[in-house]
């Protein structure tokens, strides 16, 4: 099995990256029914990924040979009232199961953090479902702490 290398995504990667993004969203659905995935998620993901490349958001992939096995996507956000103001927000992070448990996630997070810092981010924030204990453990193990909690309910 080829050792995956982390690199910037290109337009040629869009279908494969979109597939991984949808897998990540489906995984979120395991934690809460509020993350029910829409039927045309794959089509939406393709647009989302290509828009991200065009908008120059951070989009890194891990590729084992020609096969895309992981993705991390992040974008810059401004905080109006707080300092530091510029946040690098990791919105999507997914690695295929057979490439997990071998520090690839750590490597991708490091490279994403460096990239975001170069883009001007002063803090790095990652968004994950509250119930995703694996993700919570992944980030806390690397010095992240819980910052904001989202509370959700359906309106009566």
């Amino acid at each position: 099995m080829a050792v995956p290398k982390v690199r910037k995504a290109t337009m040629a990667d869009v279908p494969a990256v979109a597939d991984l993004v949808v897998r990540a969203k489906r995984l979120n659905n395991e934690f809460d029914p509020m993350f029910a995935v829409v039927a045309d998620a794959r089509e939406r993901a393709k647009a989302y990924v290509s828009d991200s490349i065009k908008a120059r958001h951070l989009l890194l992939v891990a590729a084992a040979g020609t096969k895309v096995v992981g993705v991390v996507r992040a974008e810059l956000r401004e905080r109006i009232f707080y300092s530091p103001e510029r946040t690098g927000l990791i919105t999507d992070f997914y690695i295929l199961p057979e490439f997990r448990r071998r520090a690839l996630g750590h490597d991708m997070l490091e490279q994403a953090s460096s990239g975001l810092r170069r883009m001007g981010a002063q803090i790095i924030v990652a968004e994950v479902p509250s119930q995703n204990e694996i993700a919570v453990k992944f980030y806390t193990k690397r010095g992240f702490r819980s910052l904001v909690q989202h509370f959700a309910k359906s309106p009566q």
Partner: protein
Amino acid sequence: MPRSRGEDEASDKALAYSKFYGGKVGVSPKVPVRSLQDFSVWYTPGVAAVSKAIQANADMSFEYTGRWNTIAVISDGSRVLGLGDIGPEGALPVMEGKALIYNYLGGVNAYPLPVRAKDEAGLISVVRALEPSLGGVNLEDIESPKCFEVLDTLRAELTIPIWHDDQQGTAGVVLAGLFNSLELTGRKLRGSRIVLFGAGAANVAAARLLVEAGADPGDLVVLDSKGILYPEREDIDQLSLRNKWKYDLALTTNGRDISGGAKEALEGADVLIASAGVGPGLIKKEEVAGMNDRAVVFLLANPVPEMLPGDALAAGAEIVATGRSDFPNQVNNSLLFPAIFRGALDVRAKTITDATVIAAAKELAAFAKRKGLTPKRILPTMTDWEVYPTVAATVGESAIREGQARKKASREDLLRTATAVIGVARKTMDALRKGGIIPEPPGQG
């Protein structure tokens, strides 16, 4: 495959006899009561000295009480036979039957003990609480994946053997049958392509034991109801959260990255082990026809195998085994579990390792081989009485070798002890019947 007349007859008798006898097993004394004075020894005040000796060294409970030969057959009733979740009361007659087999074939005092426990933690807590009274626990008829969590946790935590017969028992007998089938068809375990059809208790355990016995994990292909397990299957993340045992199989098996269903899995395979669900029709003739020459096919669903054995033979399989006694090559847990606990209890084992299960499976296979292997006789049958002490001695030896025995003994002594204890159980049955304490069934006296 419709119910046979024999099956109907067995059901009618089971109902009538169960009512007549009011249960299959009971507690009976082991010590003489010559007069009420004897209770001053068996009970207070004399018994206090025994209690104090055990308090000073808890392991003495294996010497001064019946703990050394006592197990509980525990179920939550969540997956009983082919009946599904019928609850603990519904499970009781099944656990009684199991306890009777333990007693008669293994000389083991087994308590049928279905319990009301709604989840893994509840079941684990009950078994943990019972440990001081028992020399071992047979878990039975617990749904998957709950059974994996319960077994793994209790095996790691307790210092008495915890055995889940639907996992280790079935997998052990499968392994024994497979060893002989491979020999008959000129194969080695390493290098054979093995398809496990079904990813429940039996096949998940079989996959683990096969790898520990020497199979290449890349040569195993496991199927569940959604098809072949492979790392990129759509539901793989769900599996990682809901069934980590199946998830691990998806990541470690199927080295050829095959996707699809039974047809794709069986193409060029040497062995099929189906433990999936009641058939027939789950596996098709043309799918077995795609297997290699001299294929080995185990169809283990009860009461109706995944495909008719005759169809598997017609499709080119050389050896076919099922879970039924009315076909050749019955893969029957009863060949193993009485001997497993006989051997484990005789050395006061702390656990039954996978290496011990593999050693027992090899002994079972060797026993059948000594009697003469044919494609229709790859395993001993339950009437081969000597198989139980023989396998028990191997289990004891293995537990000693594995550093899991509280008591050490030579193979000769282990064989002698197992033969004697099993002999007592059979003699007791004979005596109780001859003495009229156990009457003949109604209509046969």
